[in-house]
């Protein structure tokens, strides 16, 4: 039976994947990544956008090697296991809009679902509002699925199409090797760097890259997906993916609490977080809904982009654009609280996601 060939896709496999991601993230924090942000796809893509100068928020500019590692790890894994499938054409512009909405929501909360887990594991009580928002957002998404929501079929594409996004990632990786971070310099060549704030907090370059690549391989093989975890539970009562998320939470918590003393329970003064419960919740509702409609959390989208899925790649590009807008327009939150236009942006994106949802409910495929 085919599925048995893939050990990481079994129940013990997904649990092992969750443990590895949880432990690796907490170790990355210990080695220099920001607090409760060992690995956060939304935050790190935002930092990448900053490093490229797509936005000029000085404290969040750094080409995070974890992002490139994840995508390229997934590419190598999919090539090795013959799972690299160039595909695309399933409503790309809609996926771009969903990626933008997801990023805008995530940056109001300050984190992707991976970081929700890491913030919880670090004792950040504000993340409880994020979890609640994520569940509600994904829950709304499942209502659309029950009504037949789908973004249409993807089709096989040229090898070059499948390789385009990984090449883009490899190109950025090369750029950050040519123009590396130089202490005290906010700019090296074409790239921007943070001298203070979360963007200046990072584990050694090579460690970040290698850990990212390992997670890329494990994520690609295990199909680890935080949004899918909640979606499958709500929609099908399937616990498979949820066990992976739970394993990540427990592993990160035990590492924080027992090994590295990084567990600090409370609401106030949490690293890279604010205490506005309503918008911690609201931001994640929008993000959760956008992830659900697009079929994967940011980590999963990045991994699928590495496997040749051009639609997932467009979602990631949408997230990069969303990050740029978030900081250029003052939508993103900071430790001081929610940005001036954050709430209205969240509401607008929520309405947009609802419209996208309703607009694609009529689709019934070729059901037999």
């Amino acid at each position, binding site marked *: 039976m085919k599925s048995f060939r893939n050990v990481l*896709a079994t129940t013990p496999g997904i649990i092992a994947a969750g443990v590895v991601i949880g432990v690796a993230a907490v170790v990355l924090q210990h080695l220099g990544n920001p607090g409760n942000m060992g690995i956060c796809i939304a935050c790190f893509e935002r930092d990448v956008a900053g490093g490229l100068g797509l936005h000029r928020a000085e404290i969040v500019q750094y080409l995070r090697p974890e992002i490139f590692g994840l995508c390229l790890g997934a590419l190598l894994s999919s090539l090795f296991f013959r799972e690299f499938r160039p595909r695309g054409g*399933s409503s790309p512009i809609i996926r771009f809009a969903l990626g933008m909405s997801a990023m805008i929501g995530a940056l109001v909360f300050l984190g992707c679902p991976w970081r929700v887990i890491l913030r919880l594991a670090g004792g950040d009580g504000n993340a409880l509002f994020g979890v609640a928002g994520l569940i509600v957002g994904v829950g709304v998404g499942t209502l659309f699925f029950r009504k037949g929501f789908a973004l249409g079929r*993807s089709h096989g594409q040229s090898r070059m199409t499948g390789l385009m996004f990984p090449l883009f990632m490899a190109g950025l990786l090369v750029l950050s090797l040519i123009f590396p971070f130089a202490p005290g310099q906010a700019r090296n060549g074409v790239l921007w760097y943070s001298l203070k704030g979360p963007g200046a907090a990072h584990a050694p370059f090579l460690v970040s890259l290698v850990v990212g690549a390992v997670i890329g391989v494990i994520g690609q093989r295990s199909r680890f997906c935080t949004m899918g975890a909640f979606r499958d539970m709500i929609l099908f009562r399937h616990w498979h993916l949820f066990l992976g998320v739970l394993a990540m939470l427990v592993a990160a918590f035990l590492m924080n609490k027992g090994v590295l003393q990084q567990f600090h329970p409370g609401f106030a003064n949490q690293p890279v977080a604010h205490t506005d419960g309503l918008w911690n919740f609201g931001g994640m509702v929008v993000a959760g809904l956008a992830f659900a409609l697009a*079929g*994967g959390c940011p980590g999963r989208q990045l991994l699928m982009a590495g496997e040749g899925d051009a*639609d997932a790649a467009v979602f990631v590009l949408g997230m990069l654009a969303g990050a740029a807008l978030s900081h250029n327009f003052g939508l993103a939150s900071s430790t001081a609280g929610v940005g001036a236009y954050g709430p209205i942006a969240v509401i607008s994106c929520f309405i947009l996601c609802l419209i996208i949802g309703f607009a694609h409910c009529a689709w019934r495929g070729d059901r037999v």
Partner: protein
Amino acid sequence: MSVKVVDARGLSCPQPVILALDAMKREKSGRIEVLVDSDVCVENVTRAARSQGWSVTCDERRAPAPGEWLLDLSKE
């Protein structure tokens, strides 16, 4: 006995599982063929079918094109 066919090629998560579960719910027993075109869908549909008490065999050779699979779901 006629075999129901579900074409889930090109669909992203969770559509293939939804279509397969819909078919299983409607048919209750017998045979259903599910066409998919990704390893993830093979795993997901297999897991879902087994959770409903259906047995699953996977045949790459009977699929219409390379990179596609035909999942054979059956229940007494």
